[in-house]
């Protein structure tokens, strides 16, 4: 799972001017034809840099995203739910592995990525900086956060970088179970006792704000992404993805008789777009920069795991071990 609300660095287009114009034209023509870029192909430095940043953020989101859900495995109601949630969390960690490998093909090692996550230099999806108080929160994540992630990942799977697309195809195929599982859990809460219904309503009330943040800042204020769209790094604008998500899932939430805590939320029948209260982008920035309810805990858990696993990695290491950049 993952949010499209990744933050791209301010793009200095002047670095493009320094690229070899002939190679740049060939590169752009290849993308225009719908061909994939492979690791050994020439690529502009800006393309490499932004892709590393994006794939790495995605990988970190998978790993960190496993934490708020993983915490519910032991407390999931019943054996079946436990086994499903365990399989789902294992998938998320597996997705992290696939994505780290894809980012590695661009020249950043896994150690560097993990170090940058722990030091706070690299980001991950903002939504995981919020706590999962109850089982219903875990259900909200499995159903709706994953749904949002799928909207984003399906778009990105049509991007231009071969290894990333291949990883995403695999990830999207696995995510379909997460989505169905999440919806199944929510249907059971919704059709259960009043207490179960209240639990899920409270989860919606807690998670709606971060969910609206999930796809990233509004197009009006987000960084200049025209070149990233042309290079098929970014495949859809933040607002378009948010709109697609609302279109697919708000009716499903309403159908179950729940309410969404935004009195301005409605679909404009003329434009076909959803209208909503503008999310608080100052809070989004504040949380992504470290000041959210769970930022410290998420990174500490990851850091302690890394420190405690050190002796295992050292014990496993063989004299002939040598790092090689993955092939594809």
């Amino acid at each position, binding site marked *: 799972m993952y949010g499209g609300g990744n933050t791209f660095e301010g793009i200095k287009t002047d670095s493009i001017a320094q690229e070899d114009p002939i190679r740049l034209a060939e590169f752009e023509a290849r993308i225009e034809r719908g061909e994939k870029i492979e690791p*050994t192909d020439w690529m502009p430095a800006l393309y490499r840099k932004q892709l590393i940043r994006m794939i790495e953020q995605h990988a970190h989101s998978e790993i960190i995203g496993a934490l708020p859900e993983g915490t519910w495995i032991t407390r999931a109601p019943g054996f079946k739910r436990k086994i499903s949630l365990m399989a789902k969390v294992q998938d998320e960690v597996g997705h992290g592995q696939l994505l780290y490998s894809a980012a590695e093909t661009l020249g950043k090692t896994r150690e560097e990525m993990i170090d940058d996550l722990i030091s706070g230099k690299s980001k991950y999806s903002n939504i995981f900086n919020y706590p999962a108080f109850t089982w219903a929160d875990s259900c909200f994540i499995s159903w709706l956060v994953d749904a949002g992630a799928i909207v984003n990942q399906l778009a990105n799977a049509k991007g231009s970088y071969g290894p990333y697309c291949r990883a995403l195809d695999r990830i999207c195929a696995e995510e379909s179970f997460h989505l*169905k599982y999440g919806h199944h859990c929510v249907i059971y809460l919704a059709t259960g006792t009043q207490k179960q219904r209240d639990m899920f309503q409270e989860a919606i009330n807690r998670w709606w704000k971060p969910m609206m943040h999930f796809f990233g800042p509004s197009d009006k204020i987000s960084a200049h992404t025209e070149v990233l769209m042309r290079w098929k790094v970014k495949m859809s604008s933040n607002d378009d993805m948010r709109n697609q998500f609302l279109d697919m899932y708000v009716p499903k939430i309403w159908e179950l008789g729940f309410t969404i805590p935004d009195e301005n939320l409605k679909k404009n029948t003329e434009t076909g777009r959803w209208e909503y209260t503008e999310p608080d982008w100052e809070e989004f920035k504040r949380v992504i920069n470290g000041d959210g309810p769970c930022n410290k805990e998420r990174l500490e*858990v990851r850091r302690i795991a890394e420190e405690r696993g050190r002796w295992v990695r050292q014990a496993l290491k063989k004299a002939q071990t*040598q790092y090689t950049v993955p092939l594809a």
Partner: protein
Amino acid sequence: MKSLDPRVNRLPVVGKPGEISPKVPLDQLGTFEVFVQPKEGKPFQHEGIVHAPDVEMAFVLAKETFTRRFTCVSLYVCDTRNVYVSPLTEATSNAYDLISEATEKSTHKTSYEIYHLLKRGKQHVHVGTVQAGSPQEAMAEAKKVFKNDKTVYNIWAVKTSDIRFTTDEEKDLWLTLPEKKFRDASAYKGGDKLKEFLERHNA
């Protein structure tokens, strides 16, 4: 650290918060390429990589990373360093055109596995085995045997003895895959329950 999760609260204090002690080189170990056979009779295809200290560990991790889903009857792994790679070619040119015919014939031959990339963005697929004395010779042999009118963008050659194959006894690793319905979207049918609820709700 005060967490909602009691297990997090029980974590020992290690190092300093926010700081990671410097890593030794190769902390994440080496890389190994993973190939999977989806069905009996189908060719092996490249799936991706795992990090591992050796080929045995790579095999175990590959099984976990790449074959939790979908059908798999066999997989194998080899060290990334042992994959010989041809240049990647452009639009219509064939990678085999860049490979020169073998001039010398080695007397000591071993077998090499050959893989083709037939479409950019897709994965390398196993096409067969050749006997050769060196990777270069293996590519030249492959040109004789496997080159046809299809454009091949990229060729890989791996010495058969560098590969860690699935043994016959290990084939049952994947026998339980079809039983693991809880990993399958189709196992989560909530439709009837939802329909019944909606009928009650709208009545």
